[in-house]
């Protein structure tokens, strides 16, 4: 491990040996070894390294060893014998989608409104083609959620978009899903209204529920992802979180600035749908109005099945509308990992974290920027990525 102080020293006084190592690295990089980057140890040298915490390192180096990040910084010493991949672009942590139903309707279970012990992890098909599409768009981890067809459809799992099957599931239950939005209600079974959903939840959490996930959520061990679209649903979610002791995240509010005003002070993170071209001006401005908010935010594609995640596009359009770019990068990476309680493994470039990396030819939040390569657990995983 390289401490911060060591990093500073290495930036200010690169030794002759280090310079020689860098020079050797550059020479190796020219051989175009990136396409076959499957070594156990290698270094990435980029014009800019975004660490996922909001920090940007100019001319940074990322050292990867056995699928983990060994060190990150400017002017780092590269151990002898390591391959160096050099590129003009930007290296950042792999993006994290905070909610997608990859696998689609096969995961739909909405006959009953409260099924807290259903685990989507059991139904996940790691070979579903959407994982490749997400990977191509630079997403390396997805919080796979059950379709929001009931008040409690179950718990979601965090899954990597590439890698050996046995290693891809990072967490089998990273959060309990709760639907307060209209998509969670059905006319032919109770509850059919918002207040009915509230009653059902108070009932479940207020009494001794046998469901283990409910017990864990009550103790604050399991994060609660409450889907809420309208202002009223957002307010209810915040209120229930307070009453029932949830470690809550509010997912998919239609107007983020309005939701922020409602939950401000309650320290409830917001998980936003990515902006797209088909949204009205009010919504677009609402994302822009978040500006440089210190409130934790993340993005969830909320895709049902296929398509593209649209996370990077959505963040870019939000930045166009006024969202601070550093906030947007953190929301796509480190901020999202923290919401899943997986910040020790995912979302940031720091020693010991999984080497899930995206290499782009420019600023990740410019719409014209292309993905050059995606690494998952230190292995080149994409095949000509160019998604969003």
């Amino acid at each position, binding site marked *: 491990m390289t401490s911060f102080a060591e990093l500073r020293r290495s930036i200010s006084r690169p030794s002759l040996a280090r310079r020689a190592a860098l020079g050797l690295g550059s020479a190796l990089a020219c051989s175009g070894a990136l396409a076959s980057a499957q070594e156990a140890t290698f270094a990435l040298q980029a014009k800019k390294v975004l660490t996922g915490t909001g920090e940007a390192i100019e001319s940074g180096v990322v050292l990867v060893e056995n699928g983990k990040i060994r060190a990150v910084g400017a002017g780092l010493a590269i151990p002898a014998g390591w391959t160096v991949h050099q590129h003009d672009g930007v290296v950042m942590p792999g993006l994290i989608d905070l909610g997608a139903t990859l696998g689609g309707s096969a995961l739909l279970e909405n006959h009953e409104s409260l099924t807290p012990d259903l685990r989507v992890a059991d139904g996940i098909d790691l070979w579903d083609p959407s994982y490749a599409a997400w990977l191509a768009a630079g997403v390396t981890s997805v919080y796979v959620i059950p379709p929001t067809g009931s008040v409690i459809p179950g718990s979601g799992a965090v899954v990597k978009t590439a890698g050996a099957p046995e290693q891809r599931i990072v967490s089998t239950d990273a959060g309990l899903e709760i639907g307060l939005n209209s998509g969670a209600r059905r006319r032919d079974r109770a509850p059919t209204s918002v207040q009915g959903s509230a009653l059902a939840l108070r009932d479940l959490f207020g009494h001794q529920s046998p469901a283990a996930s409910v017990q864990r959520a009550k103790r604050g061990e399991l994060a609660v992802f409450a889907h809420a679209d309208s202002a009223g649903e957002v307010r209810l979610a915040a209120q229930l979180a307070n009453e029932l002791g949830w470690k809550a995240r509010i997912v998919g509010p239609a107007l983020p600035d309005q939701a922020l005003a409602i939950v401000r002070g309650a320290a409830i993170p917001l998980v936003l749908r990515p902006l797209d*071209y088909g949204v*009205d*001006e009010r919504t677009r401005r609402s994302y822009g109005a978040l500006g440089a908010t210190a409130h934790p935010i993340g993005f969830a594609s909320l895709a049902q099945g*296929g398509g593209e995640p649209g996370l990077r596009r959505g963040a870019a359009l939000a930045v166009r509308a006024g969202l601070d*770019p550093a906030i947007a990068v953190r929301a796509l990476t480190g901020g999202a990992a923290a919401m899943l309680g997986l910040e020790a493994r995912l979302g940031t470039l720091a020693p010991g974290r999984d080497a899930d990396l995206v290499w782009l030819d420019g600023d990740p939040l410019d*719409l*014209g*920027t292309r993905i050059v390569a995606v690494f998952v657990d230190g292995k080149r995983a994409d095949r000509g990525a160019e998604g969003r």
Partner: protein
Amino acid sequence: MKRSTDPVGWSSCGTRALRRAAAWVFAAGCVGVGLGHASAAPQEPSTPPAEPVATPVAPAAAKPNLFVQGARVLTGRGEELADADIAISGGRIRGVGDFQPPANSAAKVIDARGLTIVPGFVDAASDLLLEAEARAGRTGGSELELALSVDPFDDRPRLTALAAGVTSMALARAAQTAEQGLSAVRKLAYPPREAHAAVGGSALHLRIGLGRDRASKERDLRGLSSLFEGAEKYHGELEKYAKELKEYEEKKAEYDKKVAKEREKEKDKPEAEKSASKEKEPKKPREPKEDLGKAAVFRALQGELPVVLHVEDELDVENALELRRKFGLKLSLRGLSRARAAVDSIAKAGVPVLLEIDAVLPNRELTRTPAVARDLAKAFAEAGVDVAYVSGSRGRELAPHLLDLAAEAVSRGVSRASALRAITYGPARALGLERKIGSIAEGCDADLVAYDGDPFSSAARVRWVMVDGEIVYAADRIEGSAQR
């Protein structure tokens, strides 16, 4: 140092070759030269003229009274100028290069150092300005004037467009019908006076390929063929009527004369003995029923009115090009989201294309999009087709996303210059208005957008928008105030 002391401020005294080259380009600017430059964007000349550029003689009326100074200028035709000045008068650009406002003059100067200025974007097909009811629907007609569906007092869509850097829009809709209506181009000036806002560029909008199967496509094609034939027939009837009317009038005059003569002869006879005239009175021909729709279609067949044909896939394109050959249409194509295989035939026919989001980002809803379909925008750019990215018919009041489309096109392999051209000079050409809008060049309207950074960067913001030499939108005045 770079400034001239020339009292009129017209001499282009830049010492760098680039400046001279730029001035040379712009001397052959928008309307200054004759009909010459219809083919392609003028390339930056590889060798600037040996002699210093002749000082243009400024007519009194064209004497610039507004100078935008020190900006990075992207002209829309592929040139990029660092630290350039734009001289403006009467709402038009009088020159781009190195200018100094004359001393002691009343000329206004806008300091644009640090800003990047691009031509106001031209949206060659948009329903933003149309009333909600007019945007889609099942009814249409070639006589339907879309300009009448614009509410000149509704300022919201205009500001929405300006905030996105769009200064001219061609009206378009997406009705489920072959005959969409007559389009017109609107300038987003303020106040939205009719005379000021209309800049020409009328076109007849038609649509085929609404059905997805071959049979209904064939039916659409026959429908349009018979529409054109009907218009020709109507015109034939009108011609026949005109001829017959002329003959009738001659005969009638003759008849009237004869009758008058007979009357004269029998003048003295008593009324009862007067014989009826032996002359047969000519019969007046029957006027064909007036049909404004067919009249408009006939104007299109005469080449007076360009035709924009909304199509979907390769078969539609084939049909469209067939119609063009058969009827000699001045054609552009819109849509084309599934027309990847038709790129070469479009390029060969030299038909401009208006690409909507589905064409720039084809099948983004599908997981497994064939790579070949993903690069449609790139394929068009590389085939040398005149491309315009348009916001198209979106059915709701949504901001036109032209610059975002251009940026996305860059991520799909289109060069930045081509992408910018596809929202400025390209659409202006497709509308036949390239001498007026869509580029920063002498003689063009002073429609400018100033960004505080590289326009392709998400962090860049519109600082101000100018239409016809007047700043009609300024971010610092809009932001923070009541946002609707």
